[in-house]
């Protein structure tokens, strides 16, 4: 599409999937920031630990985003900061700044928190700050408080674990070992609760299995009870690393049962769970035919309405495109800056069967001009897709939205129908940070 930029015609264009490199289709250059804010950040995520107090130690420019996050989610009383200034970089007193700063804040709090999450940043990594010493000192000075190390260091996103993987692993770093309770399960690494009617949750609860989930914990003690889980179920790709840590540290077993739109993979995942935990297998054929009915119903209603999907809505955007395309839907666009390895088979399928599917970036500088602000007739799945297509008909969801298995397909169908029938206020909805989280915006 052509857009006029400073008096010049600029071509804003996608890559056809047949021409895409996997897993990174786009050049990593200057980046744009879409106004869609529904994904959670590390300040939101840390607040999931009940009664935790967050202390960020960063430069002002880095502090601003997280302190205002805390205010917007009305959690400002659980949030404090230590500002890194230029002289700290020169003086080499970073360890002292952290220990004294964190201690000073703790002393000022009206009530001592049971745990403190100390977030350090890119500058600490670069100045060789001795974080081991820092935490050792903090634990010595405040023996009644549990400390854990968290990080706001986006510069490390291409170095080992991503910041998102690290944060999702920190959710559980404060759990203290306790005897394993046989036959119990914890869903791990999710920002919001797994839906009670989702395929795995339902099977577990019907079997009377005790289920732990961070998002359901109300107190720090309740949170600690999660350490008794025998199995840790991770279904979000960046949650897997945290599960591996837990397995090594607490002795339970990680079951990585990734979110998927593939019937075959859902069956495989449920069977994997049933191998370890005494659940009753669902009637797969019946569940799949219910999904088929739901898909047919949506298809009847929306016909050939063009569809766009973004990666922030579901961790398998290509899997979703494949599911919908193979059921006759008119999926035109997928927004994803890169793909996970888990998407390779869907990628290969789509290259063969739907070679003209458009793959759009979200970060590439050209995306500044992708939205012409004229309402389009696209049905969008995800906030970013809604923004780029100015689509008032969109499914407002991020990070799989707590859905799983067959229920994810039927629920998505319901949400698609609702989106077709009801317009949404794009500007208001997508600019709220952290979908599903409390917000004063």
């Amino acid at each position: 599409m052509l857009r006029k930029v400073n008096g010049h015609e600029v071509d804003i264009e996608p890559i056809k999937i047949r021409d895409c490199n996997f897993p990174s289709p786009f050049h990593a250059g200057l980046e744009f920031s879409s106004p869609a804010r529904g994904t959670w950040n590390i300040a939101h995520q840390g607040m999931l630990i009940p009664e935790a107090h967050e202390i960020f130690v960063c430069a002002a420019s880095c502090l601003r985003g997280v302190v205002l996050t805390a205010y917007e989610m009305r959690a400002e009383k659980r949030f404090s900061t230590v500002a890194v200034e230029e002289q700290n970089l020169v003086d080499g007193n970073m360890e002292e700044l952290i220990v004294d700063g964190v201690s000073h804040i703790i002393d000022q709090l009206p009530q001592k928190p049971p745990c403190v999450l100390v977030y350090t940043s890119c500058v600490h990594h670069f100045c060789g700050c001795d974080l081991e010493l820092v935490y050792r000192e903090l634990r010595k000075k405040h023996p009644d408080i549990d400390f854990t190390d968290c990080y706001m260091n986006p510069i490390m996103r291409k170095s080992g674990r991503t910041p998102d993987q690290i944060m999702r692993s920190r959710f559980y770093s404060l759990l203290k070992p306790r005897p394993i309770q046989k036959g119990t399960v914890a869903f791990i690494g999710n920002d919001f609760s797994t839906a009670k009617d989702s395929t795995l949750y339902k099977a577990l609860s019907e079997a009377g299995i005790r289920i732990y989930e961070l998002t359901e914990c109300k107190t720090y003690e309740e949170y600690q009870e999660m350490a008794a889980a025998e199995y840790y179920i991770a279904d979000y790709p960046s949650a897997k690393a945290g599960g591996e840590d837990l397995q090594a540290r607490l002795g339970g077993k990680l079951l990585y049962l990734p979110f998927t739109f593939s019937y075959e993979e859902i069956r495989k995942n449920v069977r994997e769970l049933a191998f370890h935990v005494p659940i009753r297998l669902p009637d797969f054929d019946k569940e799949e035919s219910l999904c088929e009915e739901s898909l047919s119903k949506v298809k009847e209603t929306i016909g050939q309405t063009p569809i766009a999907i973004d990666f922030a809505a579901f961790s398998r955007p290509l899997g979703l495109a494949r599911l919908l395309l193979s059921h006759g839907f008119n999926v035109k666009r997928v927004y994803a800056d890169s793909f996970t390895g888990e998407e390779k088979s869907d990628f290969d399928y789509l290259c063969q069967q739907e070679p003209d599917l458009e793959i759009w970036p979200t970060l590439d500088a050209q995306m500044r001009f992708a939205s012409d602000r004229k309402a389009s007739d696209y049905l969008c799945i995800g906030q970013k897709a809604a923004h780029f297509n100015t689509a008032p008909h969109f499914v407002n969801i991020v990070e799989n939205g707590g859905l799983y298995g067959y229920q994810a397909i039927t629920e998505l169908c319901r949400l698609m129908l609702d989106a077709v029938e009801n317009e949404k206020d794009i500007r208001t909805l997508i600019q709220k940070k952290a979908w599903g989280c409390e917000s004063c915006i």
Partner: protein
Amino acid sequence: MKQTSRILSTYSADAFGVASMLFELGGMVIIHDASGCNSTYTTHDEPRWFDMDSMLFVSAISELEAIMGDDNKLIEDIVTEAKRFHPRFIAIAGTPIPAMTGFDAESVAFQIENETGIPAFGFSTTGMKTYVSGASMALRAIVERFSIKEITPSGNRVLNIIGLTPLDFSTNGQCESLRELFEKNGWTVNATLAMNTTWESIENIGSASVNLVVSSTGRATAEYLKETFGTPYLEAVPYGSQLTGKILETLSLLADGKEAAIDFNDPETEDGCFIIGEEISSLSLAKALALETNRHFSVLCPTNDGPKLRSCDRYTPYEEDIDDALRGAGTVISDPIYRNVLTEKAAFIALPHEAYSGRIFRKDIPNLIGDISYIAEKL
């Protein structure tokens, strides 16, 4: 302990000040920082982000590029996009990691300008100072570079209003009210830097007979214009009718080449009565309230240690300073976030400041240009 905040927020940072000041000018601004770090600015500090296609990007520097001092990738990326988008100028703003690695923003800008033929600027912001510092240096650099030097100041009543960004004036009509107010009083407003202004107004900025500086972000530019064109300037915001009258009178005298100033000193400041905020706007509000309500406020200024602060005022960059100053406070006018450190006894009047609380109270930001009844009625 300095540098710690138990509960208070932090002001928008210098790199974001650069971005905010240059947002509407048709340039390409690159915050040289890690991926995602631009979202702080675009979410909390930039109310125009959703509606205006300003070319604000982040360089997305990685660990390896920072360690290896690889500026070539940054230069290549900027040159590529500049050739595609044809910006009027290019500006690079540094952040903590470039500051640590000794990134030479000016040299990089020089190289980019050589390769593209597009004027380029490198700002050595660090992410550790407030927006005032970044916005000041950005505006001055633009005016220095693009103002027509051969121009002579007009003998007529032509005015530039300098130091406007949403960080201090939001997007609730204050900029438009300023222009209207002066036009209604017989002035021709040339530039409103840097909101709702034309590029030609920047080129012709030297044509003004006087400059009005409405925030400390405009001071450096006004000083430059005085040095270069001899244009006198006044630092004040026309809050309330009486102060507005004094401003109009003073501007006229200055435009006529006479010595004139407004005395902001107030020997009657009341103990425990404070306005917290940016230097020039807070002092102007204090003056306007003294004139119209006979209430006398001191200023706590966390944004910059400005030269206009009076002996009763304090530069308060840290929560500890604010805590000390507000102990036993009687009446406080400030951003609502400061309420968290006030006792229940203190009377509080909310005056949201976008540079502090971002978008949270945006809809409650009043337009006080020419009329301070919103505040006065609450006293």
